[in-house]
């Protein structure tokens, strides 16, 4: 079967995407962990290490462009490379969300703040789990698996709503901490958006497998409320 070079280099880029994905997973877990531990050194590390994620993103983008320019991919190969470019960007933005959460810890410092940690932890675990499985489905080009994952976003939305109510209650109950509690809204927003971006990765998996482009969360509340 010809095209050994293209296959080999494509596999290399896919491996790099998996590594980038695991860096994002790790950063997210670590960032959320610092909300409870208030380990400010760790938070600063997560904040700074986003730079490594950004650099990796550019390196992967460059590798994809070189592959496109030199190997003239067609059909499924072309869709895979276009999808890899897209997923690469999604992962980099998820890295920014983790960085944003680490920044919240740094802003709070050691101040006493009543955060909805149960919901936050669950949201983070769910989002990271979704990301992990979405990337597996993406690399395996398993559209059936990919289609199922965005549905889990409903659970994250529920947790978001619960956490949101708790945060508002806390603001009313302890107005003196409102500055810091307000920061918790960023955290849950970031985690909610992270799950949305996982859906985008799943869309790209279907695109590779079928060539069809469509939005999987097209019927979410934002659209219905317009």
């Amino acid at each position, binding site marked *: 079967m010809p095209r050994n*070079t293209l296959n080999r280099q494509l596999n290399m880029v896919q491996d790099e995407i998996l590594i980038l994905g695991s860096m994002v997973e790790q950063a997210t877990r670590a960032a959320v962990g610092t909300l409870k531990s208030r380990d400010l050194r760790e938070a600063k590390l997560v904040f700074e290490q986003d730079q490594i994620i950004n650099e990796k993103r550019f390196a992967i983008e460059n590798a994809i462009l*070189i592959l496109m*320019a*030199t190997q003239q991919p067609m059909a499924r190969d072309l869709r895979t490379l276009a999808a890899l470019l897209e997923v690469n960007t999604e992962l980099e933005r998820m890295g920014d969300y983790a960085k944003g959460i680490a920044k919240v810890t740094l802003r709070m410092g050691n101040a006493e703040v009543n955060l909805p940690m149960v919901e936050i932890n669950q949201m983070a675990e769910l989002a990271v789990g979704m990301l992990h499985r979405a990337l597996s489905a993406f690399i395996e080009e398993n559209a059936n698996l990919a289609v199922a994952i965005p549905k889990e976003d409903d659970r994250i939305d529920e947790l978001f709503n619960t956490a949101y109510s708790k945060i508002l209650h806390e603001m009313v109950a302890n107005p003196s901490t409102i500055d810091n509690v307000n920061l918790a809204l960023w955290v849950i927003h970031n985690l909610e958006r992270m799950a949305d971006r996982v859906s985008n990765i799943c869309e790209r998996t279907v695109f590779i497998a079928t060539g069809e482009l469509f939005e999987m969360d097209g019927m979410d509340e934002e659209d219905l409320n317009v």
Partner: protein
Amino acid sequence: MEDMNQPSKYAIETRGLNIFYGDFQAVKDISLQFERNRITAIIGPSGCGKSTVLRAFNRMNDFVPSAHATGEVLYHDQNINHPSVDAVQLRRLIGMVFQKPNPFPKSIYDNIAWGAKMNGFRGNTDDLVEETLRQAALWDEVKDNLKKSALALSGGQQQRLCIARALAVRPEIILMDEPCSALDPIATLKIEDLMRELSQNYTIIIVTHNMQQAARASDYTAFFTMDTDRSGIMVEYNETSLIFTKPKDQRTEDYITGRFG
């Protein structure tokens, strides 16, 4: 002073190479270094002198009476244009594969065995035939029909046989002049995969009109064009990935994007 015992870092190198056909200067002042065990492609519009330069690497231009060269082509630290260099021996070490597959009208087996024997091969010919056919990724397709005429093979198979024939005399460098221009796309991709395999043990220099092929198959690319006096000049040489994504010279950019040439 360069240590003469150390083999040169490069498989072959030109310094200020000029080639003339009579009064006409075909290529001007080419200085290029070819990395060992790598594939280097020479691309450029028709008439830019890329085949002329390729043929200078094993003195094939000797067959053109009006051709003469100045400057240096260094191979193992020696200028191959020096009268003391045995051109026949040189062509054994620097083999060539041509545009149109040109097997002898003999059996597959003899195509490989003959050239090797003429070059003084004294070992086991059966082993040599198998080894080189394997290296040329042709063995599995022909192993049961080694006595069949080479001319009965498909174009792509004939070209791989010609590559096997070139390998049978144990060269260091393989020159390829448009080796796929007579082949269909799948046969072309097979040859490109084969080139990648061979580059582990050989240095490959390929001239091609097909810049997509240069992009796909090579590690380094040299872009040639014609100067105002119609002499061929080298515009840019770099890693293939850079030539096709970030060329430095506007003329290279214009050529590879199809704006010129």
